[in-house]
């Protein structure tokens, strides 16, 4: 052991107690676990909303509502040609009538396949990137000119409330992260005050021997910083395990919508930064608390 590290070790022994000795690391671990989960939820939902918004804003469905099957087919073909040549349309594809019939069968029974029931022809339209709303308005005018029996439905219209809900949940998760950071700070303040009070006799002796406030505060900030480091590492590891587990479960649902809840590399980097920020927050809060308490003594 070098002289310097031996010297530091001796100085660090001035306060009693070891790592993971008190409840502090465990409290930090639990708070870090909850913070990481909330942050992951916020980031995941944010990513889902962004992905959904981009997806929805660029897509629309055109319905050909014509009872006569032959007229409907002819009109669908004309519409498809018109759409493929229209400005702002990246692609237009007819939805397979059989697929539509299959999707309706659970509600309509075998009537759906009898042919007696007129089922609208459906065309999926993918818009070019840009002002989706203007593109939809332009297409609406185009279709109106072709036939009054054509309807266009932008996907954003019916999935917007869901996107709003996910967005609100994302902000709520962000709020929880903020509150957890405040609570962590408060826990550290209480722990630092408690440690300061319980070691008052030692602090008095150190003061009377000429220790500066900064020297004494350094002992506490190191101790609390180490506790926070241990707690944060533990909470982070467990939270990541849970997030990966939830990720697997989400993927297993096979739902495109739920699978959109994903964490980008930036999201993972932000999650990794949280325990580092937690340790810094705990260390600085401990230092500030102890310096404040010491400044009241002579």
């Amino acid at each position, binding site marked *: 052991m070098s*002289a*310097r590290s*031996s*010297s530091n070790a*001796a*100085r660090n*022994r*001035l306060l*009693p107690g070891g790592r993971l000795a008190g409840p502090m690391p465990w409290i930090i671990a639990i708070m870090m676990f909850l913070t990481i989960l909330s942050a992951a939820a916020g980031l995941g939902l944010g990513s889902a909303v962004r992905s959904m918004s981009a997806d929805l804003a660029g897509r629309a469905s055109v319905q050909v509502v014509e009872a006569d099957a032959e007229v409907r087919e002819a009109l669908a073909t004309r519409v498809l040609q018109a759409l493929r040549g229209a400005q702002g349309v990246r692609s237009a594809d007819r939805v397979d009538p059989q697929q539509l019939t299959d999707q309706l069968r659970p509600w309509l029974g075998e009537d759906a396949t009898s042919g007696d029931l007129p089922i609208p022809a459906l065309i999926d339209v993918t818009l070019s990137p840009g002002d989706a709303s203007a593109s939809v308005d332009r297409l609406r005018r185009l279709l109106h000119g072709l036939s009054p029996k054509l309807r266009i439905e932008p996907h954003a219209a019916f999935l917007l409330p869901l996107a709003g809900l996910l967005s609100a949940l994302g902000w709520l998760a962000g709020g929880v992260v903020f509150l957890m950071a405040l609570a962590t700070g408060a826990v550290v303040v209480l722990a630092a005050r408690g440690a300061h009070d319980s070691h008052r*006799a*030692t602090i*008095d*002796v*150190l*003061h*009377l*021997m*000429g*220790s*500066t406030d900064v*020297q004494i505060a350094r002992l506490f900030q190191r101790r609390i910083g180490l506790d926070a480091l241990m707690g944060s590492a533990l909470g982070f590891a467990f939270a990541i395990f849970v997030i990966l587990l939830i990720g697997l479960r989400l993927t297993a649902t096979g739902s495109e919508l739920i699978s959109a809840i994903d964490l980008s590399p930036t999201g993972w980097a932000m999650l990794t930064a949280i325990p580092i920020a937690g340790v810094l927050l705990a260390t600085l809060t401990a230092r500030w608390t102890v310096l404040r308490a010491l*400044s009241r003594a*002579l």
Partner: protein
Amino acid sequence: MTAIVQFENVGLRYGLDSETLSDVSFSLANGGFYFLTGASGAGKTSLLKLLYLAQRPSRGVIRLFGEDVVTLPRGRLPGFRRRIGVVFQDFRLVPHLSAYDNIALPLRVAGMEESEIDAPVSEMLNWVGLGDRGQARPATLSGGEQQRVAIARAVIGRPEILVADEPTGNVDADMARRLMTLFEALNRLGTTIVVATHDLPLMQQVSGAQMMRLDKGRLADPTGALRYPPRAQGGE
């Protein structure tokens, strides 16, 4: 002879109580040996607290090392405290540290390198007769042993002033004589010694030492507080 400590009309009051110390004025010469005596509750410990900067007076002026310490900013106090060694009446050893680490404390506080600490601490442990008890915690030491550790801790940094509150209260007569011999040795090296004690034979042991007596918070003889004229030290 240079005054290392000067009290001028110093008063000390705790809260709203009557003054514990009133109109205390005296001057201690650099390199002097002083006993502070008086009945229990006379204010000896309070006066010593003012001396080792654990307390600010309610009024009056205190000069240490030529500077007014009453108005001194808090941030400058540590520098002054490092020049003062204190033997507390209740020892105030750090309970979770070994005797060795307790004695090393002032050196570590002063920022001394660990490689420079071992020799003086070991020497001091041997000197107070605890060479084989260096790793013992205070709780496992007898009262006398704890007091010796406290004394070793107070003197290891070669302070300019050594303040001792009843330093021989828990040691036998032989150890008390040895401690006084240590204090005299330190005094010969230039340290100003202030010892609060009731022990008259002990005071008589130190030739040339001066005595201040406190009575109900006042120096018993304000006009001649110091019983003996200061002894010349180190050519001063």
